[in-house]
Protein backbone atom coordinates (compact mmCIF):
# COMPACT_ATOMS: atom_id res chain seq x y z
CA UNK A 1 0.00 0.00 0.00
CA UNK A 2 2.82 2.36 0.82
CA UNK A 3 4.75 2.00 -2.42
CA UNK A 4 1.86 2.92 -4.78
CA UNK A 5 1.18 5.95 -2.64
CA UNK A 6 4.80 7.03 -2.81
CA UNK A 7 4.76 6.50 -6.51
CA UNK A 8 1.65 8.59 -6.86
CA UNK A 9 3.21 11.39 -4.92
CA UNK A 10 6.33 11.22 -7.01
CA UNK A 11 4.36 11.40 -10.23
CA UNK A 12 2.47 14.38 -8.88
CA UNK A 13 5.59 16.25 -7.90
CA UNK A 14 5.53 18.41 -11.00
CA UNK A 15 1.91 19.27 -10.33
CA UNK A 16 2.61 20.16 -6.74
CA UNK A 17 5.46 22.35 -7.90
CA UNK A 18 3.11 25.05 -9.05
CA UNK A 19 1.97 25.51 -5.51
CA UNK A 20 5.22 24.62 -3.89
CA UNK A 21 4.72 26.92 -0.94
CA UNK A 22 1.72 24.83 0.05
CA UNK A 23 2.86 21.39 -0.79
CA UNK A 24 6.48 21.54 0.24
CA UNK A 25 5.78 18.89 2.88
CA UNK A 26 5.09 16.32 0.18
CA UNK A 27 8.74 15.98 -0.83
CA UNK A 28 8.86 18.28 -3.80
CA UNK A 29 12.06 18.71 -5.78
CA UNK A 30 13.79 21.84 -4.50
CA UNK A 31 14.30 23.09 -8.05
CA UNK A 32 10.55 23.28 -8.58
CA UNK A 33 9.85 25.75 -5.80
CA UNK A 34 10.42 29.01 -7.75
CA UNK A 35 7.53 28.26 -10.13
CA UNK A 36 4.99 29.08 -7.42
CA UNK A 37 4.90 32.80 -7.81
CA UNK A 38 3.20 32.86 -11.20
CA UNK A 39 -0.24 31.22 -11.04
CA UNK A 40 -1.88 30.68 -14.40
CA UNK A 41 -4.97 28.93 -15.69
CA UNK A 42 -2.84 25.89 -16.23
CA UNK A 43 -1.47 26.06 -12.73
CA UNK A 44 -5.02 26.31 -11.35
CA UNK A 45 -5.93 23.08 -13.09
CA UNK A 46 -2.78 21.46 -11.80
CA UNK A 47 -3.64 22.56 -8.26
CA UNK A 48 -7.05 20.98 -8.61
CA UNK A 49 -5.42 17.78 -9.76
CA UNK A 50 -3.05 17.92 -6.80
CA UNK A 51 -5.99 18.40 -4.45
CA UNK A 52 -7.67 15.33 -5.90
CA UNK A 53 -4.50 13.34 -5.53
CA UNK A 54 -4.12 14.32 -1.90
CA UNK A 55 -7.72 13.37 -1.24
CA UNK A 56 -7.25 10.03 -2.94
CA UNK A 57 -4.02 9.34 -1.11
CA UNK A 58 -5.65 10.35 2.17
CA UNK A 59 -8.64 8.11 1.57
CA UNK A 60 -6.34 5.19 0.83
CA UNK A 61 -4.26 5.82 3.95
CA UNK A 62 -7.38 6.06 6.09
CA UNK A 63 -8.83 2.87 4.65
CA UNK A 64 -5.54 1.09 5.27
CA UNK A 65 -5.49 2.24 8.88
CA UNK A 66 -9.11 1.38 9.52
CA UNK A 67 -8.34 -2.18 8.41
CA UNK A 68 -5.29 -2.25 10.65
CA UNK A 69 -7.29 -0.99 13.63
CA UNK A 70 -9.87 -3.72 13.08
CA UNK A 71 -7.09 -6.27 12.99
CA UNK A 72 -5.53 -4.91 16.18
CA UNK A 73 -8.87 -4.94 17.99
CA UNK A 74 -9.29 -8.57 17.06
CA UNK A 75 -5.80 -9.41 18.23
CA UNK A 76 -6.33 -7.68 21.56
CA UNK A 77 -9.68 -9.34 22.21
CA UNK A 78 -8.51 -12.80 21.17
CA UNK A 79 -6.82 -13.35 24.52
CA UNK A 80 -6.41 -11.56 27.83
CA UNK A 81 -4.03 -8.66 27.39
CA UNK A 82 -2.22 -6.21 29.62
CA UNK A 83 -4.77 -3.63 28.55
CA UNK A 84 -6.85 -4.37 31.62
CA UNK A 85 -8.21 -0.87 31.90
CA UNK A 86 -9.09 -0.73 28.22
CA UNK A 87 -6.83 2.20 27.38
CA UNK A 88 -5.43 0.68 24.21
CA UNK A 89 -8.77 -0.79 23.18
CA UNK A 90 -10.24 2.67 23.72
CA UNK A 91 -7.64 4.26 21.48
CA UNK A 92 -8.29 1.67 18.79
CA UNK A 93 -12.04 2.13 19.07
CA UNK A 94 -11.78 5.92 18.93
CA UNK A 95 -9.21 6.13 16.14
CA UNK A 96 -11.42 4.46 13.55
CA UNK A 97 -14.28 6.99 13.72
CA UNK A 98 -11.80 9.84 14.11
CA UNK A 99 -9.98 8.81 10.95
CA UNK A 100 -13.30 8.47 9.16
CA UNK A 101 -14.06 12.02 10.25
CA UNK A 102 -10.78 13.23 8.82
CA UNK A 103 -11.62 11.43 5.59
CA UNK A 104 -14.93 13.25 5.39
CA UNK A 105 -13.27 16.58 6.08
CA UNK A 106 -10.49 15.89 3.59
CA UNK A 107 -13.00 14.98 0.90
CA UNK A 108 -14.71 18.34 1.43
CA UNK A 109 -11.51 20.39 1.44
CA UNK A 110 -11.28 22.98 -1.31
CA UNK A 111 -7.75 24.24 -0.72
CA UNK A 112 -4.45 22.50 -0.78
CA UNK A 113 -3.55 24.03 2.58
CA UNK A 114 -6.52 22.42 4.31
CA UNK A 115 -6.08 19.18 2.43
CA UNK A 116 -2.42 18.97 3.32
CA UNK A 117 -3.14 19.61 7.00
CA UNK A 118 -5.84 16.96 7.10
CA UNK A 119 -3.73 14.54 5.15
CA UNK A 120 -0.81 14.97 7.53
CA UNK A 121 -3.01 14.54 10.59
CA UNK A 122 -3.82 11.00 9.42
CA UNK A 123 -0.27 10.11 10.36
CA UNK A 124 0.77 12.58 13.03
CA UNK A 125 -2.34 12.51 15.20
CA UNK A 126 -2.92 8.77 15.29
CA UNK A 127 0.27 6.90 14.54
CA UNK A 128 -1.70 3.75 13.82
CA UNK A 129 1.40 1.92 12.65
CA UNK A 130 4.17 3.66 14.51
CA UNK A 131 2.55 3.68 17.97
CA UNK A 132 -0.76 1.83 18.16
CA UNK A 133 0.35 -1.29 16.30
CA UNK A 134 3.38 -2.15 18.45
CA UNK A 135 1.44 -1.03 21.50
CA UNK A 136 -1.43 -3.42 20.77
CA UNK A 137 0.78 -6.36 19.85
CA UNK A 138 2.98 -5.86 22.87
CA UNK A 139 -0.12 -5.63 25.09
CA UNK A 140 -1.40 -8.88 23.58
CA UNK A 141 1.97 -10.58 24.11
CA UNK A 142 2.08 -9.17 27.63
CA UNK A 143 -1.31 -10.71 28.35
CA UNK A 144 -0.22 -14.13 27.14
CA UNK A 145 2.94 -13.85 29.21
CA UNK A 146 0.82 -12.93 32.21
CA UNK A 147 -1.51 -15.92 31.74
CA UNK A 148 1.43 -18.29 31.32
CA UNK A 149 3.07 -16.84 34.43
CA UNK A 150 -0.07 -17.39 36.50
CA UNK A 151 -0.45 -20.98 35.30
CA UNK A 152 3.19 -21.83 35.91
CA UNK A 153 3.06 -20.29 39.38
CA UNK A 154 0.19 -22.60 40.31
CA UNK A 155 1.96 -25.56 38.73
CA UNK A 156 5.10 -24.82 40.68
CA UNK A 157 3.13 -25.04 43.92
CA UNK A 158 1.63 -28.39 42.87
CA UNK A 159 4.99 -29.76 41.85
CA UNK A 160 6.54 -28.58 45.10
CA UNK A 161 3.97 -30.58 47.07
CA UNK A 162 4.51 -33.71 45.01
CA UNK A 163 8.29 -33.50 45.10
CA UNK A 164 8.20 -33.18 48.87
CA UNK A 165 5.91 -36.19 49.12
CA UNK A 166 8.25 -38.21 46.93
CA UNK A 167 11.27 -37.16 49.00
CA UNK A 168 9.43 -38.07 52.21
CA UNK A 169 8.84 -41.50 50.69
CA UNK A 170 12.56 -42.01 50.37
CA UNK A 171 13.06 -41.04 46.74
CA UNK A 172 16.08 -39.01 45.67
CA UNK A 173 14.52 -35.76 44.41
CA UNK A 174 17.68 -33.66 44.43
CA UNK A 175 17.50 -32.81 40.73
CA UNK A 176 13.79 -32.10 40.91
CA UNK A 177 14.27 -29.79 43.88
CA UNK A 178 16.96 -27.86 41.97
CA UNK A 179 14.62 -27.56 39.00
CA UNK A 180 11.88 -26.31 41.31
CA UNK A 181 14.16 -23.59 42.65
CA UNK A 182 15.12 -22.51 39.16
CA UNK A 183 11.49 -22.58 38.09
CA UNK A 184 10.59 -20.21 40.91
CA UNK A 185 13.39 -17.84 40.00
CA UNK A 186 12.40 -17.77 36.34
CA UNK A 187 8.74 -17.17 37.11
CA UNK A 188 9.58 -14.32 39.49
CA UNK A 189 11.78 -12.73 36.87
CA UNK A 190 9.12 -13.10 34.20
CA UNK A 191 6.55 -11.54 36.51
CA UNK A 192 8.76 -8.52 37.14
CA UNK A 193 9.46 -7.98 33.46
CA UNK A 194 5.88 -8.57 32.40
CA UNK A 195 4.63 -6.00 34.88
CA UNK A 196 7.27 -3.51 33.76
CA UNK A 197 6.35 -4.03 30.12
CA UNK A 198 2.70 -3.44 30.91
CA UNK A 199 3.57 -0.18 32.67
CA UNK A 200 5.68 0.97 29.72
CA UNK A 201 2.89 0.24 27.26
CA UNK A 202 0.30 2.03 29.33
CA UNK A 203 2.40 5.19 29.20
CA UNK A 204 2.42 5.50 25.39
CA UNK A 205 0.59 8.49 23.92
CA UNK A 206 -0.02 9.77 20.38
CA UNK A 207 2.85 12.07 19.49
CA UNK A 208 0.97 14.57 17.28
CA UNK A 209 4.19 15.08 15.40
CA UNK A 210 6.22 15.95 18.50
CA UNK A 211 9.66 14.49 17.87
CA UNK A 212 10.39 14.15 21.58
CA UNK A 213 7.22 12.16 22.15
CA UNK A 214 7.95 10.05 19.07
CA UNK A 215 11.31 9.23 20.59
CA UNK A 216 9.95 8.47 24.05
CA UNK A 217 7.21 6.29 22.61
CA UNK A 218 9.68 4.34 20.51
CA UNK A 219 11.94 3.88 23.53
CA UNK A 220 9.02 2.70 25.67
CA UNK A 221 7.89 0.20 23.05
CA UNK A 222 11.44 -1.07 22.61
CA UNK A 223 11.85 -1.44 26.37
CA UNK A 224 8.53 -3.27 26.70
CA UNK A 225 9.41 -5.50 23.80
CA UNK A 226 12.79 -6.36 25.34
CA UNK A 227 11.17 -7.11 28.70
CA UNK A 228 8.59 -9.35 27.07
CA UNK A 229 11.23 -11.18 25.07
CA UNK A 230 13.15 -11.79 28.29
CA UNK A 231 10.01 -12.86 30.16
CA UNK A 232 9.21 -15.22 27.31
CA UNK A 233 12.65 -16.81 27.63
CA UNK A 234 12.21 -17.08 31.40
CA UNK A 235 8.88 -18.86 31.06
CA UNK A 236 10.23 -21.18 28.40
CA UNK A 237 12.97 -22.17 30.85
CA UNK A 238 10.42 -22.53 33.67
CA UNK A 239 8.35 -24.80 31.45
CA UNK A 240 11.39 -26.95 30.81
CA UNK A 241 12.03 -27.07 34.57
CA UNK A 242 8.47 -28.29 35.09
CA UNK A 243 8.98 -31.05 32.52
CA UNK A 244 12.18 -32.08 34.27
CA UNK A 245 10.34 -32.30 37.58
CA UNK A 246 7.50 -34.30 36.07
CA UNK A 247 10.01 -36.74 34.57
CA UNK A 248 11.63 -37.13 38.00
CA UNK A 249 8.27 -37.83 39.62
CA UNK A 250 7.41 -40.40 37.00
CA UNK A 251 10.74 -42.12 37.46
CA UNK A 252 10.14 -42.76 41.17
Amino acid at each position, binding site marked *: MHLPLTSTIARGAAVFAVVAGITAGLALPASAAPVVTKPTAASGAAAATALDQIKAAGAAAISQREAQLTKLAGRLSAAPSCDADGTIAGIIAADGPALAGIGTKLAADTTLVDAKADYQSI*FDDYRVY*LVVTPQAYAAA*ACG*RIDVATTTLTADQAKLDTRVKAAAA*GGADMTAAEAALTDMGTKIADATTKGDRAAASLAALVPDHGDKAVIGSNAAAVDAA*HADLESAHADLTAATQDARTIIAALKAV
Partner: protein
Amino acid sequence: MINDLVLPVAEPTERPPRRSWVTGSAAIAVVALAMALSGCGARAAHRDATSSTSTTVAVTAPSTTAATTPTSAQPTDDIEEDLTSVQADLDGAAQDLRDGPAEATTDARG
Protein backbone atom coordinates in the same frame (compact mmCIF):
# COMPACT_ATOMS: atom_id res chain seq x y z
CA MET B 1 40.67 -99.14 55.38
CA ILE B 2 38.11 -99.09 52.64
CA ASN B 3 35.86 -101.60 54.34
CA ASP B 4 36.07 -99.72 57.61
CA LEU B 5 34.79 -96.56 55.99
CA VAL B 6 32.06 -98.06 53.86
CA LEU B 7 30.48 -100.42 56.32
CA PRO B 8 28.80 -97.90 58.64
CA VAL B 9 27.24 -96.08 55.71
CA ALA B 10 25.93 -99.25 54.17
CA GLU B 11 24.23 -100.33 57.41
CA PRO B 12 20.45 -99.91 56.76
CA THR B 13 19.45 -99.86 60.40
CA GLU B 14 21.51 -96.75 61.30
CA ARG B 15 19.92 -94.33 58.74
CA PRO B 16 16.19 -94.90 58.12
CA PRO B 17 15.16 -93.82 54.62
CA ARG B 18 11.92 -92.24 55.89
CA ARG B 19 13.77 -89.80 58.15
CA SER B 20 15.65 -88.33 55.17
CA TRP B 21 12.37 -87.85 53.19
CA VAL B 22 10.68 -86.10 56.08
CA THR B 23 13.57 -83.68 56.50
CA GLY B 24 13.58 -82.77 52.79
CA SER B 25 9.82 -82.24 52.72
CA ALA B 26 9.93 -79.94 55.69
CA ALA B 27 12.61 -77.82 54.05
CA ILE B 28 10.59 -77.50 50.85
CA ALA B 29 7.50 -76.58 52.82
CA VAL B 30 9.32 -73.84 54.67
CA VAL B 31 10.67 -72.36 51.46
CA ALA B 32 7.26 -72.55 49.80
CA LEU B 33 5.61 -70.88 52.76
CA ALA B 34 8.19 -68.11 52.74
CA MET B 35 7.58 -67.56 49.06
CA ALA B 36 3.82 -67.49 49.49
CA LEU B 37 4.02 -65.05 52.38
CA SER B 38 6.34 -62.76 50.47
CA GLY B 39 3.90 -62.55 47.57
CA CYS B 40 6.56 -63.43 45.13
CA GLY B 41 6.05 -67.11 44.73
CA ALA B 42 5.57 -66.88 41.02
CA ARG B 43 8.72 -64.86 40.49
CA ALA B 44 10.71 -67.07 42.84
CA ALA B 45 9.58 -70.21 41.01
CA HIS B 46 11.53 -69.04 37.98
CA ARG B 47 14.70 -68.55 39.90
CA ASP B 48 17.39 -71.12 40.53
CA ALA B 49 16.23 -73.09 43.57
CA THR B 50 19.84 -73.78 44.59
CA SER B 51 20.76 -70.09 44.81
CA SER B 52 20.44 -68.56 48.23
CA THR B 53 21.00 -65.08 46.69
CA SER B 54 17.93 -65.41 44.51
CA THR B 55 15.81 -66.34 47.47
CA THR B 56 16.99 -63.27 49.38
CA VAL B 57 16.18 -60.89 46.52
CA ALA B 58 12.72 -62.38 46.13
CA VAL B 59 11.96 -61.72 49.76
CA THR B 60 13.35 -58.17 50.00
CA ALA B 61 11.92 -56.78 46.74
CA PRO B 62 8.34 -56.35 48.01
CA SER B 63 9.44 -54.09 50.86
CA THR B 64 11.02 -51.61 48.38
CA THR B 65 7.94 -51.60 46.17
CA ALA B 66 5.66 -51.04 49.11
CA ALA B 67 7.64 -47.97 50.22
CA THR B 68 7.52 -46.19 46.83
CA THR B 69 3.99 -46.99 45.70
CA PRO B 70 2.32 -43.88 47.22
CA THR B 71 4.85 -41.55 45.55
CA SER B 72 4.66 -43.07 42.09
CA ALA B 73 0.89 -42.80 42.28
CA GLN B 74 1.12 -38.96 42.35
CA PRO B 75 -0.60 -37.80 39.14
CA THR B 76 1.02 -35.26 36.83
CA ASP B 77 -1.58 -35.25 34.07
CA ASP B 78 -3.12 -32.00 35.27
CA ILE B 79 0.23 -30.23 35.20
CA GLU B 80 1.11 -31.66 31.81
CA GLU B 81 -2.16 -30.29 30.45
CA ASP B 82 -1.28 -26.93 31.96
CA LEU B 83 2.10 -27.01 30.27
CA THR B 84 0.44 -27.62 26.92
CA SER B 85 -1.68 -24.54 27.53
CA VAL B 86 1.35 -22.55 28.67
CA GLN B 87 3.23 -23.53 25.54
CA ALA B 88 0.32 -22.28 23.42
CA ASP B 89 0.40 -18.96 25.29
CA LEU B 90 4.14 -18.67 24.81
CA ASP B 91 3.82 -19.46 21.11
CA GLY B 92 1.13 -16.80 20.80
CA ALA B 93 3.26 -14.27 22.66
CA ALA B 94 6.21 -14.98 20.41
CA GLN B 95 3.99 -14.44 17.39
CA ASP B 96 2.76 -11.13 18.80
CA LEU B 97 6.31 -10.03 19.52
CA ARG B 98 7.25 -10.77 15.91
CA ASP B 99 4.15 -9.27 14.30
CA GLY B 100 4.18 -5.98 16.22
CA PRO B 101 7.53 -4.65 15.02
CA ALA B 102 6.98 -6.11 11.55
CA GLU B 103 3.63 -4.39 11.03
CA ALA B 104 4.82 -1.17 12.64
CA THR B 105 7.09 -0.65 9.67
CA THR B 106 4.25 -1.00 7.16
CA ASP B 107 4.09 2.77 6.77
CA ALA B 108 6.93 4.87 8.11
CA ARG B 109 4.77 8.01 8.05
CA GLY B 110 2.91 6.63 11.04
